[in-house]
């Protein structure tokens, strides 16, 4: 119901042509879209990542993750990632305190070393575990990371979608431009990414949307097609649970240290 009201607001805004520039309109849609996915407090899920090379060979990686919503409008969420396969990395844990337009803080627990290492790097544009997904793609819908522009409307798979163009603010981003489709339920459906030389690099498809807690749409599948190297990655979320009352202390460096002791 909340979504429908939002859409109405947008539609009325469009029809009445209230003095709103294309940039503001794009920004507003992106903001509403982002906000419609918020309010989960915390979340757990199992994730399956399938890497597919141009010949169709597949490699599968399994991970599970916990995240903690950060309500601070100027900062990002906290996540813990547990690596399960391949067997040699089983037990490796990564804690991230994400930030909006700065490098994230990351700690990694390596069981073979039985130590926690703090890693600082400008890796947001880097590949996640050799996949076609970059770290920065996981928060592709965060309106605070981009400058926006409303381009128009387009029908995608039978649904009317807003076409939004966005430009990354983070200076080490691997992209210069994105063109995305957001449907009337404010769900991102598809985003084209353009690389540093302005050429189409990849397309991310958000699929298998499920309604959680009767109010939050979440894509439980994300398919990435790289147009340049012809590789693809499929990311699937399973057993996703929201609002389960995780302990905030788990998301601090000290709790990761406990694993090392």
């Amino acid at each position: 119901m909340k979504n429908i009201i939002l859409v109405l607001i947008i539609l009325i805004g469009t029809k009445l042509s209230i003095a709103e520039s294309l940039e503001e309109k794009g920004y507003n849609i992106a903001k509403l879209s982002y906000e419609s996915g918020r309010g989960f407090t915390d979340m757990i899920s199992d994730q399956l990542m399938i890497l597919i090379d141009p010949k169709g060979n597949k490699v599968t990686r399994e991970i599970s993750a916990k995240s903690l919503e950060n309500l601070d409008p100027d900062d990002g969420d906290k996540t813990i990632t547990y690596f399960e396969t391949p067997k040699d990395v089983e037990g490796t844990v990564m804690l991230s305190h994400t930030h909006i337009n700065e490098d994230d803080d990351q700690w990694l627990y390596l069981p073979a070393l039985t130590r926690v290492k703090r890693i600082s790097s400008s890796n947001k544009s880097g590949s996640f575990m050799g996949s076609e997904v970059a770290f920065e793609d996981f928060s592709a819908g965060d309106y605070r990371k981009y400058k926006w522009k409303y381009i128009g409307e387009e029908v995608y798979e039978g649904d009317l979608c807003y076409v939004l163009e966005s430009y990354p603010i983070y200076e080490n981003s691997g992209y210069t431009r994105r063109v995305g489709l957001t449907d009337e339920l404010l769900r991102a459906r598809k985003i084209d990414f353009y690389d540093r030389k302005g050429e189409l690099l990849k397309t991310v498809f958000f699929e298998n949307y499920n309604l959680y807690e009767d109010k939050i749409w979440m894509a439980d599948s994300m398919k990435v097609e790289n147009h340049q190297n012809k590789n693809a990655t499929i990311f699937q979320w399973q057993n996703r649970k929201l609002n389960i009352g995780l302990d905030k202390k788990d998301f601090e460096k000290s709790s990761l240290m406990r694993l090392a002791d």
Partner: protein
Amino acid sequence: MNFENRIENFAITILNHRIKVIFSAIILIILISSGIRFLETPSGYRGFVQDDFKYYQDILELEEKYGNIDVLTYVIKPNKGDIFQKDVLKLIDELTEASWQTPYSSRVSSITNHQFTEVDGDDISIDNFIINVDELTKENLSNLRELAKKEDSIVNFVMSESTNVGLININLEMPEDIAFKKPIDFAWNQKMIFEKKYPDIFVGVAGSAQFSHNFQSVAEADASKMYPGFLLLIIILTYLLLRSVMSSLIALLVIIFSILPSLGSAGWFGFEAQPPLIAAPIIILTISLAHAIHMLSIALTNMNEGMSKNDAIIDSLKINFTPIFLTSFTTGVGIAGLNFGNIPAYSEMANTVAVGAAFGFILSVTLLPALFSLLPIKSNYKESTMLFFLKKLASLIYKFKERFVIIISLICIYVFSLLPNLYFDDYFGSYFDRVPEWVEVKDIVDPEFGSSFFTFADIETNEPNGITNPEYLNKLDEFENWLVQQESVADVSTVSDVVKNLHKNMNGGSEEYYKIPENKALIAQYFLMYEFSVPYGMDLKNQMTADKSSSRMLIRTNYSTAIETVEFNKEVNLWIENNLKPFKTKGVAGIPIMMPHLFTENTNGLLLGLLFSFSFIILVVGLSLRSLRYGIISVIPNVVPFILGFGILTLFTDMVTASHQVAVLISIGLVVDATIHFLSKYQKAISMKLEADEAIQYCFKYVGYPIIIASICLFSGFIFLTQSLFFNNFVIGGMCAIIIIIALLIDLLLLPALLLIFGKKA
């Protein structure tokens, strides 16, 4: 009806329908020539090999796993001092950033964006090796220099050991069948911008992308620079030789109309405009020119002697039809021997010339007489001085025939003793040694880095995540240690270097941990960590497969000759066979491995082609002369020029490359032409019951002059080819020119003497 009558009837028919002949010839020529638009832009070194060539397949397999091997490299060298100066690093930093804009680029690596790890206890910070260039102090710069010298993946890859030269390597992910023009144009534009901004620093463009692009740029430059000058030379030459504007015009038309449809056919066949093809029009031109000169000079002489224009050309056609056919045929057959090689560019050139030879013949006996009959032509053709000289020469030879034979035989025997010094080899590093921009960069890169080429080896474990096995990484190390001791290898980089570096950094940066850890799980976790911590375009995807079952070694090779490379490759394979188990590899692959093997195998093919062309031509000559005796005599003037030609080659070099063989195959069909003309006239003289000395005088009178003229045309054609920027064309042009001029001397001096001694008497 005998053959001569048939030709006469044919000639009369042509002249009776001259307008129809001219129009239908022109229409046909325009139609066929329109294929020129389909001539494909050369796809660089890839177009130089056949798709199924084993060493090219190796490259393709490697690319399927690890991405395209092609690299565009900027070479940065300050005029004074090394690269650890603020403005040099600033240039590298800015150019590195700008390089991400390069069309088709997938990663950019330089000393500034090299991912450098700093360790402070359990805090690991990974960042660009050089940041905030503006704030660097003198002390910072010298610290950076020392740090850089210790980094394996910097030295010899993005910086020379002497620290004097820096490189920016841009990996290109080229779509299939796309030439390098876009990225190269981009790079040259950047070079201009940065050299303007930093006038004291040299910026050059190198790498396999530039190497590949050279094939295209050289072909284009040759075509636009050589052809106009050559055409001008031919116009002057024909006028000087024929002394008739209209006749020169006819010759020019026949020449152009032979060249255009052969290039058109090349287009219809889907050939590539590779540098060797540049030679085709020049060769076709010289053949057609020789035809035209033979036809026109006799027709003009006839007119001088009072014949009507039509009778003069009919008579000329009667005399020339068979020799022109034979010379076109032998030229085509000779050059077709190139098809025995395995370089498509040369086969395509050969087949284009063969088509051109056919057009040259057809037009010389159809269009040429028709035009001659139609256009107003006055003959003020004089050959008295030349004829006088030839008469003198003929009597001189008659007088001293034995001495001529003995002296030339002695020279031949001496030169023959030099030939065993020659050996077959090739040096792909020299292909573009006539391109100043390429040489300028090469002279900086080669002494500092060995070459700007890479070789690769895909080492497989055949199990997912197998590369995290310490046994595997130690084996890579062992292989690397063996490789760097080889003369052909400048440096090697493997994923085991990455692991050793990580192990060190994860242990407080202590040097004693610069080794492969024994724990497989630990190595796997290091890789995981590394993959997490590098930005866009810096990952290990071009070094390992997604399932981590195999990894790619990067080997920077020194320039080596074909023999050295084949030897190196054998040794590598031997080492692999004896030491690499249980891991697997197909061996080393890359441009520095492929090109030498291409030429080695090509050499063997060409030798077979040579055998084919030579025997075929000798057979044709013998058959056409209908005489075993003359067939055998004809072998001598056709073999001696090659012996002497290669004897002269020993003055310059002992290395016989594929280009020298190509030169033999091109010139064999041309050398034999003069012999055919001379012998057929001698036979005719004998059948006219002339005495031996009169028969020689007859030959000199009727073919001496045309032979000299044709040889001069061929000689100038090949001299022009030596102006090519493509080194191989330069060699072919030079070699052919030498052979043609020797053949002329032999035909004028040795052949008559031989005929006087061994020929039939009337």
